[in-house]
């Protein structure tokens, strides 16, 4: 049972790290916090592998470490450190305090949702499952509440992490191939989004998502 408590505890840590990703005011910091979060995720995978005795998850955690802790943050750090929009500021629509409250509400909602689910495989890890769902929503919330397009990329990554965790929790014994697909998918998506963000900044000289409503052709 200790293993599962560890899993749930690490899942709680995930929420905190994702709040840090969302609320940090510079893309570079966000990238660092994202690396930290991914590290927590890898730890979560390891704990889950230990708890469920799933060999596949070891491989998952290894590949996740390479892609999520090293490659993606590196790409984003490299790409985004050159871009800054002084006029935009942090680009947050909600104040940090309200964001925390929102995150709490999201978690409560997700928990109440998950508590209604009766799956034999997920009985012990319901808090973690709730967190994984909430994580997905936090990613969406990041996209909605941040005007900075770079933050939207992070929002996407958070969603991706959330869904990744859900998959791991519910299908710990899924083949490695699935994880490889997800990981590469994430890398390519991030690369493409980084390129697009750079292009947008070079064209419009702004990172404000509100200015993008006039993009045409």
């Amino acid at each position: 049972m200790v293993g599962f408590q560890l899993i749930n505890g690490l899942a709680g840590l995930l929420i905190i790290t994702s709040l840090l990703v969302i609320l940090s005011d510079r893309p570079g910091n966000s990238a660092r916090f994202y690396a930290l979060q991914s590290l927590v995720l890898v730890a979560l995978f390891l704990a889950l592998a230990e708890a469920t005795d799933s060999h596949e998850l070891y491989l998952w955690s290894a590949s996740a470490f390479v892609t999520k802790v090293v490659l993606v943050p590196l790409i984003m750090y490299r790409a985004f450190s050159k871009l800054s929009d002084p006029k935009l500021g942090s680009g947050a629509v909600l104040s940090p305090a309200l964001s925390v409250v929102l995150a709490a509400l999201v978690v409560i909602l997700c928990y109440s949702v998950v508590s209604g689910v009766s799956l034999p495989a997920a009985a012990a890890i319901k808090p973690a499952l709730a967190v994984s769902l909430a994580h997905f929503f936090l990613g969406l919330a990041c996209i909605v509440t941040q005007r900075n397009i770079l933050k939207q990329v992070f929002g996407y990554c958070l969603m991706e992490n959330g869904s990744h965790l859900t998959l791991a929790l519910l299908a710990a014994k899924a083949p490695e191939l699935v994880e490889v697909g997800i990981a590469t998918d994430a890398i390519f998506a991030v690369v493409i989004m980084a390129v697009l963000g750079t292009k947008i900044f070079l064209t419009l000289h702004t990172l404000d998502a509100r200015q993008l409503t006039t993009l045409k052709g």
Partner: protein
Amino acid sequence: MTMIPLVSLHDPLHLLLLSLAISVCGGVASLLLRACDGAAIRVAGLAGIAAAVAGLGASLPALSGPALVFEAAGPYPFAHFVLRLDPLAALLIAVISLLSLVAWIYSLAYVREYAGKGVGAMGFFMNLFIASMVLVVAADNAFWFIIFFEMMSLTSYFLVIFDQDEEAVSAGFLYFLVAHAGSVLIMAAFFIMANYAGSYDFAAFRTASVPAPLNSVVFLLGFLGFGAKAGMIPLHIWLPRAHPAAPSHASALMSGVMIKIGVFGIVKVGIDLLGASGGVLWWGLLVLVFGAVSSVLGVVYALVEHDIKKLLAYHSVENIGIILLGVGVGMIGIGIGQPILAVLGLMAGLYHLVNHAIFKGLLFLGAGSVIYRLHTKDMEKMGGLARTMPWTAFSFLIGALAISAIPPLNGFVSEWYTYQSLFAAAFSGSWLVKLATPIAAMLLALTGALAVMCFVKAYGVIFSGPSRHAHPDDVREVPATMVIGMVILAIACVVLGLAAPVVAPVISGIAAATLGAATITVADGVLLIPADAHQAVLSTPLIAVMLIGAAVLPLLLKSALSGSLRLPARQAAAPWAAGYLPDAHMSATAGGFAQPIRMFFGPLYEVRKSIAAVWSKVTFGFERFISFARRSEPCWDRALVDPVGEGVVASGRRLQAIQGGDFRVYCLYIVAALVILLVLTVR
């Protein structure tokens, strides 16, 4: 087996229907061809000419009676479609047809002036206007009479506003108002009669007996209603504005024919329809008084006009007055039970009706020709046109002589009969008649004198003297078809004057048939006799011979004495101007010519001002009513339609905000949808 032909050209009724059908088809074709001006003018004109010829063919044989009746089932039980071609209707149709024939010939060139302004529509309205006039005259059922009367008013309204400038539209509005006020009165009169007749057929009206106070009410309603259409004072106010606004060939028809339908209506109601319950003396006196007042005031107002078409329009008021004098004597004759006097008076009125139609049509066409070349209606800017437009000038001169009642032209003949009927009435009846008729004769004399003065002014200022026009060298004679139109009417003026011994018996026959009385002797050989040869005798052919002789005899004498017909050469020199060099400003102007009259009849012009003030108040009140209606009319819109429309637009705008293009907002929708789904799952 014999075939029954669909249209028999020997049957006046068939010809009449044929004429109407041609008019309607021509009008519609003209409207369809409106994209091509030249074709529209030609189609409308040729159809109009054909219809007019058919109309003449239908009406001339029917002049001597008996009445022909065409019946067809109407859409409602009370609305029998009955056309009755009695001698009076035939006379009116003959006049309409002759005038429209000439107007259509004239229009072939004249309407080109309006190219690009919708001549197709003009041809349509003109054709329908003429057809509706014919139908009004021939209709023998109150329902159809009102329908065609309205149609006539509407089509002519569209001709009045054809120019679509401010003056035309405002004149058209006034005309519309008066015409419809009149038709309401007429409708009321017919309703009362139908109540007693039990049918809307005029045939039933004729035999119905309307009791004493109501028959006068019916007559008054009809008199005022038709009087408004006829343009008698004080209901004339629309006439001097509407007639000048219309195109000239339409003015000729309106002034020449349409207002006669007002007189026709008065005769129809007062003599024909109320025949069984009529014969009230004061009706005739009322008509006489209105006639006398209209004739004097009409010519007095005409004298001070500078607008040539307004001048002619006021003369229409005057001549309607003269016609009403004759009709009034006719009705007095019925009232005092003297059929001979009645026939004589009505005959004088009808004769003047025909004559006025012809010379007023001629004068309006002449005015149209002048305006066609000079593009102004202001007589002060004309002058000297007899040199450049000889045919127009000559025709206008004939018309001017005729309307001024100069022998031996037609105007003189009918005015002579009017005088004679007034004189005859002055010897008979009650003291009221003996008092009224000489005064009327006196006023007629005054009218005649002023009319001469007015046309000396009109002809003189327009056609003689120096030219006051800005570009006198550009003015030339109008195209041939316009000249032909005018010359036909000028010839008609001469013929109706010289051939009076032939024409007068026909018209007195019509008057007698209308009155249901025995015919009277109005001509004997080349002599014209007002029923009684001891009263007076006149012979226009002899006067003509005398006048020609007076001009030719001196020449013959000269040739007999000196052996040569050559006259000494004329001196062509400038007129003497008290030693100064003569110039255009020295010649008599319309304003200067009329100034003494303006001073002499000052109070009468004040009368006009007060009449105009009353009418402007009526118009103003009506306009206020319209503006009130305009304000209250959108209430429903504001209460029902607008909120719905605005709601749709506003919600559309709100929905547009949903699709703002900001992808973050779209993500929010995804979140919201997911949250909702999750909440639903939890439940």
